């Protein structure tokens, strides 16, 4: 079986109580409660291959967590079908629990006051991992995640990065086939983020674990995933490779020019100037509007150039542009209607 996860027309609607402001509104809400239907996830179709690392992106309230909760069997969908590791979440929940792992960045699986090793042993028992198998597995994970020196330290005394590595180890003890990572690098500094990403890459490469990642950190997406799915307002708006997304937006460039002498910033009129100070300027140009040859010619006419750096748009801005496009398309659609 090559496909690890499928979802077809997956939909989740919630009923939210409406309450008018003020005391009268509160009383009315008790006497005659009124509800409105919220479409949290709207007919999402997904397919994830075994061993793939997929980034599942979207702004707050886009429906990412709701989708993960449905795929892990916590939430029952309103309609649609899904399958994870050949099982139906919710229906085959007990069996599925043994086949999936999860790390929720803001929720811990470890006992706060006890060394991580105690929590690992407990989780081993909960997941019915035999003691000798658990020990071997622990040895492998300790080496992979470099947590040997932290095993006997109470979790509350670990740094966030050390704790997160222990959380990842805890989620892998029972050898899951698919790992759901919800914001695994939230709150971590750049060095630790890089380390966690390297660990996830190794887990995927060496153990063949499929990774379903949600993150607000575009670095996670760029460095870990080849494919990303973007959702907004519960609907899937893009399913493409990360490279393809970048390519479609590569016509936008950020140019950093350093001149030999200080320049007059007004001479850069006609460019979108992001920053101009002393002998340095940062500009954003769209290759669709003017060729790079013309642009460079105009920049060289301003003064003697000492150095130039041309880079693509940061991924974060690309994603933000995709969301904005989608929002304005929806608004237009709404106006037309």
């Amino acid at each position, binding site marked *: 079986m090559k496909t690890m996860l499928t979802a077809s027309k997956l939909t989740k609607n919630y009923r939210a109580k409406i309450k008018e402001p003020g005391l009268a509104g509160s009383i009315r809400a008790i006497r005659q409660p009124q509800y409105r239907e919220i479409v949290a996830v709207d007919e999402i179709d997904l397919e994830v291959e075994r061993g793939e690392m997929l980034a599942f992106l979207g702004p707050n309230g886009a429906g990412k967590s709701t989708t993960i909760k449905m795929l892990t069997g916590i*939430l029952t969908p309103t309609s649609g079908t899904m399958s994870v590791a050949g099982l139906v979440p919710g229906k085959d929940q007990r069996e599925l*629990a043994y086949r999936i792992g999860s790390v929720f960045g803001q929720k811990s699986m470890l006992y706060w006051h006890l060394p991580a090793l105690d929590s690992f042993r407990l989780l081993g028992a909960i*997941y019915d991992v035999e003691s000798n198998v658990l020990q071997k597995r622990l040895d492998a994970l300790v080496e992979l995640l470099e947590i040997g020196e932290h095993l006997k330290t109470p979790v509350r005394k670990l740094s966030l990065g050390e704790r997160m590595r222990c959380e990842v180890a805890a989620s892998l003890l029972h050898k899951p086939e698919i790992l759901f990572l919800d914001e695994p690098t939230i709150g971590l500094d750049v060095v630790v983020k890089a380390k966690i990403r390297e660990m996830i890459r190794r887990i995927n490469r060496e153990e063949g674990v499929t990774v379903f990642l949600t993150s607000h950190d575009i670095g996670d997406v760029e460095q870990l995933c080849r494919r990303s799915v973007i959702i907004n307002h519960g609907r899937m708006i893009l399913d493409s490779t990360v490279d393809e997304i970048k390519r479609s937006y590569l016509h936008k460039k950020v140019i950093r020019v350093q001149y030999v002498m200080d320049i007059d910033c007004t001479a850069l009129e006609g460019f979108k100037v992001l920053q101009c100070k002393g002998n340095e300027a940062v500009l954003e140009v769209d290759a669709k509007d003017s060729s790079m040859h013309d642009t460079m010619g105009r920049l060289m006419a301003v003064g003697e150039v000492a150095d130039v750096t041309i880079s693509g748009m940061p991924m974060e801005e690309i994603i933000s542009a995709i969301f904005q496009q989608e929002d304005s398309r929806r608004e237009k659609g709404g106006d037309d209607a």
Partner: protein
Amino acid sequence: MKRFFRKYGSVMRVAMQNSTVYTRNFIFGSLFFCLILFMFLQLWEKVAGERGLVAGYSINRLLWYYTVAEIVTLTRSDMLERLNNDIRSGDVAIQLLRPYQYLTSLFADAAGQIVLRLSINVPIGCLTALVLVGPLEGFQLIHLPFMILSILLGLFLSLSMEAVIGLTAFWTEDNSAFFWISQKLAFMLGLFLPLEMLPDWLRSIAVFLPYPYMMYAPARLASSFSWAEAAWLLPGQMAFGIAVFVLAQAVYGRGARMVNTNGG
């Protein structure tokens, strides 16, 4: 079955380990226990006066009654707080991802805490009572297994009641009022007032409520054991224990279904 015991036995063991962190709380709890027994003794000695009897209890039996009632009361786990916290924070949804039954794991966790607390509260309570009033009058070793069974059943019933109250967090923002009422009923119907001190009409109602079976039953059997009373108190404890536990499971089932529908 082996898997079941390994799974929930591990939860219980880790809960015991985790509880050892709160040694300072244990020490303060123990001091409170000694103090409260001393206060009860002063109070009831004044009430008993020269007759030395209150509602048929001698001062010796009355203090042993309070010792056992307090052992059950003070041997609390954090079941209520855990449920409130897990349900409100949405952590309960994460727990549903694990291959175990969440409520059973909470009972195993509570059992771990209770074993540890009992191992401290029983010697402290008994030692304090011994120092204050001497050995229990009329104590026979043959009664001991029934006394222990009654204490355990009382603890199980109290725990199940806490579970039912804690699980109401699925529907209510604040369930502290339910706990407050339940605590006061337990206080009035057994902890502070043995049923023998209540008016007849109230006593006849109280026996149909679960509260006397939490503290009164074990304290009564420990302080004034009789086979006739054991014959109705122990089955009563079992019946209420099972009924409230089944109710907790049913309430949890409904709550978990709600999480499945509406999210954590």
